[in-house]
């Protein structure tokens, strides 16, 4: 057993952000290696560094290449850094993409045939002449492609001739694995292969990964689903803010305080130490949530279901928000939280179910009407206009207001209320720090005079100190009489300020209860880190 892939002090930053900061890893040959970390931790950047899509600024990425697939005939360690992607592929590193990247208009078989590019002899000129011997070669390759489809569980007679775009989401993921396998790789990198899948599909992915590993393939698995990663990996590394914070077998990693903090937020250690079961009285399960639901909610959501094409992101969610509350939706990445918010603000249309805001039916009302009735969303990722100044951003936020003078008065008021913005009023918003941009985005939302403010991941990608500032702002707005529905990955921080909260997992509400109760509930940690 030796290290197939070895990363030493790999660094890469974008602007001022250290996407991957001094990471060293060793992936043993023949193992399944897990790479996990919260959203924005740098996992995909690391994959892109290894596969040549991004160049590291320093550090080395060594691959034991024996025997090489193409290119130079050297046996031994090969430096991958600064090689173009196709050359890395030529050394036997295959990958899939977090966002599916199939050849959508080609059939499943054609996708796999394109994946076999490197392992077939270049016989283009011979193929121009239709001699039976050459055509036979074509048939042999077709047979190989069929076998690969069979191997990932896509029977070629049923799926072979179908265009990739017409396959179901789970089958598209499988096809991407088949295409990667067509390279005959030494190392297979799977970037979130189970994203957006339901539990049954995830089980099939898990079985497939284990099968491939038993066939002798080394796998680097990146996923948010802890159950999957903890279940199949022998070794796990955890990234947070571009740094490796833990490295080891799953049992030790899942107990590592730094990991729990990274996933759950700053106060997780107390929770971890908590004796399970002592707070059960406060916690309602999804089957009987009525006890804590508000009697006459400002916002009422009933059995909401939302799908993106074949993926069902929200699978029947019901909850309510009463006037004056702070309600939090928490859960791991990909649980469906943002989708819920987007279907409330009219950006997305739910597949079925109902959502009412006062007298307004949110499932049919146009977005501008929803805003003018007082339901305002501060989107994930802030979405500020980087080249405009702080003031111009705010002016645009007040654009829909009829009374220009009162809008300007409000802008001046906000500048005083948030001195951070007042001091920087003439700076381009793109020059603000992440936290300042978040406050700007919230201030812009306030200009629409919300009754209910939807905040989507306000702490995303912020340094801990800045997270404090942003949460202080949220509390202050709440004290001014705005009802708040908050979506957060930083669960413990959200639960600190929330009156009530719902834990969302794979499109369903898993738990609900008061913020204080959930904070002490070990089930919350399981929803993030897997049981």
């Amino acid at each position, binding site marked *: 057993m030796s290290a197939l892939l070895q990363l030493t002090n790999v660094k890469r930053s974008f602007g001022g952000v250290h996407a991957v900061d001094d990471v060293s890893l060793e992936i043993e040959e023949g193992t399944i290696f897990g790479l996990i970390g919260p959203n924005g931790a740098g996992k995909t950047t690391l994959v892109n560094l290894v596969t040549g899509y991004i160049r590291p600024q320093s550090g080395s990425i060594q691959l034991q290449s024996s025997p090489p697939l193409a290119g130079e005939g050297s046996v031994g360690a090969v430096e991958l850094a600064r090689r173009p992607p196709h050359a890395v*592929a030529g050394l036997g590193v*295959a990958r899939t993409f977090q966002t599916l990247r199939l050849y959508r208009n080609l059939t499943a078989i054609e996708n796999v045939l394109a994946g076999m*590019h490197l392992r077939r002899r*270049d016989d*283009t000129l011979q193929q*121009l002449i239709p001699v039976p011997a050459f055509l036979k070669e074509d048939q042999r390759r077709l047979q190989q492609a069929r076998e690969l489809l069979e191997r990932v569980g896509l029977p070629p007679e049923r799926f072979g001739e179908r265009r990739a775009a017409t396959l179901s989401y789970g089958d598209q993921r499988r096809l991407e694995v088949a295409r990667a396998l067509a390279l005959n790789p030494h190392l297979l990198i799977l970037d979130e292969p189970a994203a957006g899948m339901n539990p049954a599909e995830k089980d099939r992915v898990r079985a497939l990964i284990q099968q491939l590993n038993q066939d002798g393939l080394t796998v680097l698995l990146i996923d948010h689903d802890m159950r999957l990663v903890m279940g199949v990996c022998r070794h796990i590394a955890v990234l947070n803010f571009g740094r490796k914070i833990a490295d080891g077998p799953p049992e030790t990693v899942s107990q590592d305080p730094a990991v729990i903090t990274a996933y759950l937020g700053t106060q997780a250690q107390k929770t971890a130490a908590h004796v399970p079961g002592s707070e059960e009285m406060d916690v309602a399960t999804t089957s009987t949530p009525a006890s804590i639901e508000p009697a006459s909610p400002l916002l009422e959501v009933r059995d909401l279901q939302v799908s993106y094409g074949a993926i069902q992101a929200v699978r029947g969610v019901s909850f309510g928000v009463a006037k004056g509350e702070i309600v939090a939706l928490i859960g791991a990445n990909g649980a469906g939280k943002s989708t819920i918010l987007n279907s409330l603000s009219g950006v997305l249309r739910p597949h079925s179910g109902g959502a009412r805001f006062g007298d307004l039916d949110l499932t049919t009302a146009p977005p501008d009407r929803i805003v003018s009735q007082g339901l305002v969303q501060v989107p994930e990722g802030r979405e500020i206009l980087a080249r405009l100044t702080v003031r111009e951003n705010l002016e645009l936020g007040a654009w829909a207001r009829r009374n220009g003078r009162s809008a300007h008065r409000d802008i001046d008021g906000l500048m005083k209320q948030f001195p951070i913005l007042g001091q920087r009023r003439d700076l381009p918003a793109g020059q603000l720090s992440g936290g300042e941009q978040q406050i700007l985005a919230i201030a812009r939302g306030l200009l629409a005079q919300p009754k209910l403010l939807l905040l989507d991941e306000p702490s995303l990608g912020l340094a801990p100190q800045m997270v404090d500032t942003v949460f202080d702002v949220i509390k202050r707005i709440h004290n001014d009489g705005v009802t708040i529905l908050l979506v957060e990955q930083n669960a413990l921080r959200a639960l600190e300020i929330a009156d009530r909260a719902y834990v969302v997992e794979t499109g369903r509400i898993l738990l609900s209860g008061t913020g204080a109760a959930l904070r002490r509930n070990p089930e919350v940690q399981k929803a993030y880190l897997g049981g």
Partner: protein
Amino acid sequence: MDFFIQLFTDPVGFYNQHELLIAQIGINAILAISIFVTFYSGQLTLANAGFMAIGAYTTVIMSLYLPTPLPVDMLVGALLAAAIGFLVGLPVLRLRGVFLAIATIGFVEALRLGVILNVPITGEGQGLKNPSADPLGGILPILISVPILTYLVWRLTHTRLGQAWAAIREDELAASSNGINVPAYKMVAFVISALVAGYAGALETHINFFVDPTEYSVTRTIQILTFAVVGGTTNVIGPIVGAVFLTALPEIVRQFAAYRDVVNGVILILVIIFRPQGIVGRGGLAIIAPRWWTRWRTRERVTAAH
């Protein structure tokens, strides 16, 4: 109508009467093959008229000044177009989409206004008389070339090279993860396209007595693009059908000859709206049903089912 009646009742007479039209259809079909190759690899390049000019001028200049036989002149013309295609491709193929289109149009105009109009040997915009022009004898090589090139390019799309092109067209990032050297394969497509366009230019000198620089302007390139758009680019037959259809059209509707460009424009718009994949798109020949029509139909069906 007479056009079709004659085609079926008196093919020999038809051929004799329309020889030049048939030759022009053949040339345009070859140009359609040329633009198909770059389209198939996902690149919107519009340099074809420029490569045509290189092929045409090289052939004529060689037959004016050198004792070489005509086929050699033509071969050199096509190869020179390919070689210049390689040099132009080095900087230009780093661009994508509309930027690539603009840069290649820039090449066409730079060649015509910058080189052809200023270099004495090209007649400086006066054009060149072609000593070896043979309008009738020139048709045979054209008619032989079209099926051969069609066959070769059709086979090419099924080889390792063609599959790499399709992969690049669908998704460049994914293609490079499959080990496909994207810049190299794009270059191969661009050079083959230049070679074929240069060859078409060389062939065309056969049926013209005169090489005229205004023939090789952006207008010509856009005309070639129209063949591909109207015909469709899912397989090589598409652009050829487009070329045949659009070249023959003015002859078919003689009464509208004065409005030729208007008719072409209307057809282009109708195709883009109702048949964006072209006449020979995915799913074979078109039965014209716009996308919104089928969408509306399925919606009707869904509401009816509820």
